């Protein structure tokens, strides 16, 4: 065995140990690495009970209500299984829309209403021209019509 083979072996073993250590560390910190909780997780009590945390999901269709004062908004965050009502005072990001992704930071009050201090829009990884998006939507609409028949 030449010296360079020995060095290679040492480095390889070192790197393998490092990978194992990292996997173990990231696994044990899993809950801390989560940026937001889904409504189902909140329902199950996986989210922190006290203090603020983030919830994420889709803005439920037809749930967005703007209060007459023009500043407060209410909407529901859903993961299609469970949903949580959210109240927020402030300016919503441009991409905030019903049926689109959202992450809200705040506290759950005793009535089960999530009082958000910050609302962020979470968009998906799809990029296409508006005409293509319209065509896909039309195709989907036609498909659901077909299945209803």
């Amino acid at each position: 065995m030449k010296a360079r083979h020995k060095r290679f072996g040492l480095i390889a073993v070192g790197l393998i140990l490092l990978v194992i250590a990292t996997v173990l560390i990231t696994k044990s910190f899993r809950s801390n690495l989560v940026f937001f909780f889904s409504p189902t997780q909140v329902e199950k009590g996986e989210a922190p009970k006290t203090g603020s945390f983030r919830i994420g999901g889709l803005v439920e269709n037809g749930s967005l209500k703007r209060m007459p004062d023009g500043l407060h908004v209410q909407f529901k965050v859903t993961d299609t299984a469970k949903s949580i009502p959210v109240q927020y005072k402030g300016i919503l990001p441009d991409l905030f829309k019903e049926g689109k992704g959202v992450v809200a930071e705040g506290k759950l009050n005793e009535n089960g209403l999530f009082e958000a201090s910050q609302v962020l829009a979470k968009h998906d990884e799809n990029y296409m021209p508006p005409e293509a998006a319209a065509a896909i939507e039309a195709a989907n609409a036609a498909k659901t019509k077909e299945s209803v028949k």
Partner: protein
Amino acid sequence: METNTGTNRPRINWLKYASPKTFYPLAGKLIPWCAVSAAVLIAYGLYIGLLVAPTDFQQGEGYRIIFVHVPAAWFSMFLYLLMAMYAGLGLVLNARLSYMMATAIAPTGAMFTLIALVTGSLWGKPMWGAWWVWDARLTSELILLFLYIGYFSLQAAIDDKNRADKASAVLALVGAINVPIIYFSVKWWNTLHQGASVSLTQAPAMAAIMLKGMLIMAVGFWLYSIAVILMRVRCEILERDSKTAMIRQD
């Protein structure tokens, strides 16, 4: 004609380019080609990205920052792996040129990391509603920047070049574990950052012309990286070997 003597068989001895002495002129010849094609491709990529590609259905014109952001982020990760590979080769083979390559790659990698972070921040404010969030993708990319900075700081902090190379090579190798974490962070954890639009395993989730612009930018960034890294490695060779005969000949 005696062809089977073995001495004049047309075989290129690639290993000879592992010596700084022969690599120096080769790098010098490659630099202008890479630099010119990088400039042309980046200009063409920006032309496609900013003028030819259509607007996006949900983000409007704002998405166009993707043509810089994504290729920069790719190269921030790729160059780190390349740097770690050269650092590892240096440790195993005790090859000086490998260490010099790793040293030369670090600043370019750090620059792409910074570009990815800054363009991402500028993009995040209008689309997400925040300049910065501490989600797994953004945080691990920030750690990458610190790793690059740590790498060349450590190298600069040790006077003995040999020891500096070895110490920083270990740092580069250990830090390489962060690259897969960055890449898969959006899959493994809930993040605000969206998943990958372009990956090796799935069909790209973007229109063909947008993808074309982004890939051209990526090739442009690659050629740019090669050009500046070779320039830097030439400086490194001159600096480190300034007392050897090779330089005195010139």
